[in-house]
């Protein structure tokens, strides 16, 4: 008898198994009590409020969100590029410095990104008060470090023969580095930073939901007052911006090599971005919340060691960690497993397009809103929070998978078809098999992101580190806040190493390096 072996395409479906317990618990608690509210929510999407006051308010909010996203994105990309160079081994090697210098820089840089931008936002808010810059800085801190990580990995993974050659003919180290590694790295940077801009828009919206201004604020307030028509006004406007950005960026990604080859173009692109960012910078300053533009530190009464120690003993830390991890795994299972499962079961062109639209809507609705919406139908449990988080990330995973598939050849699929395989099997082995290693690599990165993101939905289930942190923050209990932040950050640091290991494992599985267009995430 042959042993069953899990090949990568089957493994991508495996996380979908988490659906079984999740759906079991969710369906057990389901009831139709929320049907009337839910139908009015859906109905409202066709009739968004269109009066001048609502439109004006949503537009002002959207402006702040766009400006926040753009400013924080360009600052973080800039800082990230510099830090990325400094944390790559090849940089230190060029200067004949010991190799531990790079690994120490990397370790230190892992700390800022171990804390989700929402938590940075809530923490900075305590120190700096209401200011539009709080949201910007909250995004810049983790994003810079994320960009640095990707850049340094990519720099080290490049072919270094050109650099060695240049150095041997006597070029100075730094100019040599730029000349040899600049051209191959530029398209990678361009593609990755485009992706970061999309993320920045989502983060800026989410920060608004947690009270830091912009369209998120409008969405949250109208949703909490159940004014769905007004909420949809903001959501559609945000959707318009988000989808056009995605379209532009995906066009850029497709034509990346052609664009970056023309140097003249990048000479236009850089000043254009700079101009736009500067404009946004002042836009932000003029915005409503920008009434208060000073950004200064206001002292907090920091907790003593004794207080921290007692907080450490009093908080139910194990329970909190446990529920955070369960939330992460369940939501990751949903987010990773469903897109390939859906595409496999419904592979026709029409069905794929319908799924793309659904993914778009899932990306658009922020998880704190969808969790409250789900809660209207089902009895409260952490499963609701997991589904909300999972659904949002299905939108992100699904789009990446489809982009990957669209960019590969369909020879394998034709071959499978020719052997007489059914549509699902030919999809799985024809399309998915060459995508699965990079999909799994990305999935392990996404799980790491989800671990940080649990902070966002903990509130509804009343569970997890995220919820406890918000509760402690609202009690201004700094000792508890300190303990929770340290703990959260340590867990995500461990999570990151595991996810790094896994994604390297899956990347080494790929034979053709070029097929992995999003290998750098």
């Amino acid at each position, binding site marked *: 008898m042959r042993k069953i072996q899990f090949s990568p395409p089957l493994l991508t479906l495996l996380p979908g198994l988490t659906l079984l317990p999740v759906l079991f618990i969710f369906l057990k608690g389901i009831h139709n009590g929320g049907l009337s509210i839910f139908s009015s929510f859906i109905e409202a999407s066709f009739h968004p409020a269109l009066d001048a006051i609502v439109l004006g308010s949503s537009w002002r909010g959207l402006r702040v969100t766009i400006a926040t996203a753009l400013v924080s994105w360009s600052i973080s990309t800039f800082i990230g590029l510099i830090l990325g160079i400094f944390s790559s081994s090849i940089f230190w090697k060029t200067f004949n410095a010991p190799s531990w210098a790079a690994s120490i820089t990397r370790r230190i840089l892992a700390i800022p990104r171990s804390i989700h931008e929402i938590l940075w936002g809530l923490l900075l808010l305590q120190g700096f*008060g*209401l*200011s539009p810059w709080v949201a910007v800085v909250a995004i810049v801190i983790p994003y810079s470090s994320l960009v640095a990580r990707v850049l340094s990995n990519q720099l080290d993974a490049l072919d270094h023969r050109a650099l060695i050659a240049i150095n041997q003919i006597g070029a100075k180290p730094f100019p040599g580095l730029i000349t040899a590694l600049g051209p191959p790295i530029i398209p990678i940077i361009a593609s990755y930073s485009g992706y970061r801009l999309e993320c920045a828009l989502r983060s800026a919206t989410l920060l608004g939901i947690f009270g830091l201004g912009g369209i998120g604020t409008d969405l949250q307030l109208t949703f*909490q*007052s159940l004014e769905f028509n007004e909420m949809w006004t903001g959501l559609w406007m945000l959707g318009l911006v988000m989808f056009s950005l995605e379209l532009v960026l995906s066009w850029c990604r497709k034509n990346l090599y052609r664009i970056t080859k023309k140097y003249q173009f990048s000479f236009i692109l850089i000043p254009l971005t*700079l101009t736009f960012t*500067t404009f946004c910078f002042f836009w932000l300053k003029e915005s409503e919340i920008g009434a208060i533009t000073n950004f200064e530190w206001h002292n907090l009464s920091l907790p003593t060691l004794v207080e921290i120690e007692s907080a450490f003993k009093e908080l139910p830390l194990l329970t909190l960690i446990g529920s955070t991890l369960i939330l992460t795994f369940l939501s990751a299972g949903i987010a990773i497993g469903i897109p390939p499962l859906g595409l496999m079961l419904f592979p026709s062109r029409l069905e794929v397009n319908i799924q793309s639209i659904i993914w778009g809507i899932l990306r658009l609705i922020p998880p704190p809103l969808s969790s409250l919406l789900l809660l209207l139908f089902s009895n*409260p449990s952490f499963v609701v929070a997991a589904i909300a988080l999972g659904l949002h990330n299905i939108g992100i995973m699904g789009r990446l998978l489809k982009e990957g598939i669209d960019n590969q050849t369909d020879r394998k699929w034709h071959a499978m078809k020719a052997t007489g395989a059914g549509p699902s099997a030919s999809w799985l082995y024809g399309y998915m098999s060459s995508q699965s290693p990079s999909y799994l690599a990305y999935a392990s990165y996404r799980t790491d992101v989800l671990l940080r993101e649990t902070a966002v939905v903990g509130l509804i289930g009343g569970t997890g580190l995220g919820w406890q942190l918000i509760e402690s923050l609202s009690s201004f209990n700094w000792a508890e806040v300190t303990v929770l932040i340290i703990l959260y950050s340590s867990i995500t640091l461990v999570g990151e190493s595991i996810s790094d290991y896994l994604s390297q494992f899956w990347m080494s599985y790929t034979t053709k390096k070029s097929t992995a267009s999003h290998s750098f995430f």
Partner: protein
Amino acid sequence: MIRNNLKIFLLTPVITSLSIQPFATAQSQETLFIGAIPDQNPEKLNRLYNLLSNELNKQLKVPVKYVKVTNYPAAVTAFRTGSLDLVWFGGLTGVQARLQKPGSKVIAQRNIDKKFRSVFIANTRSRLQPIKNQAGLKALKGKRFTFGSESSTSGRLMPQFYLQQSGVLIKDFAGKRAGFSGSHDATLALVQSGSYEVGALNEQVWKVNILRKRVNESRVKVIWRTPPYADYHWLAQPNLDKRFGKGFTSSLQKALLSFNKQSKSQEKILELFGAEKFIPADVKQYKAIEKIGRQLGKIK
């Protein structure tokens, strides 16, 4: 040619910034920054904020700016850091803010805030009967229960206090925890839908929802009214007289107290706040809230 173009492109940000700069910094006179916790109709309040700021501007002759605040702790922090000069706080957040900014002044409350109440509402399918006296709250043990926002006085603090007084702790509810819906309206929706069997919310929000016919009374009903306690109030920074001139704080108080329904804009403001009128408030009224806040760990 390319080089020339490049120069222009690189200069554009500088030029843009120079042209916007003067507008951004034109601020000569002290501005009074006001705000409110997001409690009732926050989205409407935010949109119609100029009603209130215009009215205060007219009476006080200083520039007034309304700042949107979207969560309770953010309002407290904004007050502590001096980002906001006058804030509409709930009982608990007001005390938190006052303790973090000693010397700040409680200047007014609504006519209804002297004796404010919360209501406990239950889904009819839970078969919970109206509770005659506080001890009857024991019947809620083992039920799915939700509060509103975690910092809300009427949606969390006082309900939790009365529950605790009658021996019901959070771990006694189903799943050993209580939910936090985030707002009074959301609590109502979640109990009406049946996802939670019982919830506690601001009595005034409940009444307004009944008037607006958003309550399906065959699905959800009130099972208990809490005893009265002091709640919402306007809190002002301690340094307003120094910044805006002698007697400014009392003029501010007078302005708020003068709002009445004869003036159209003032009537609209009072309506937004759900008030008949504003009345003077006293720090002493909030002693009890402070004590309860400490007891439940919401005040350090």
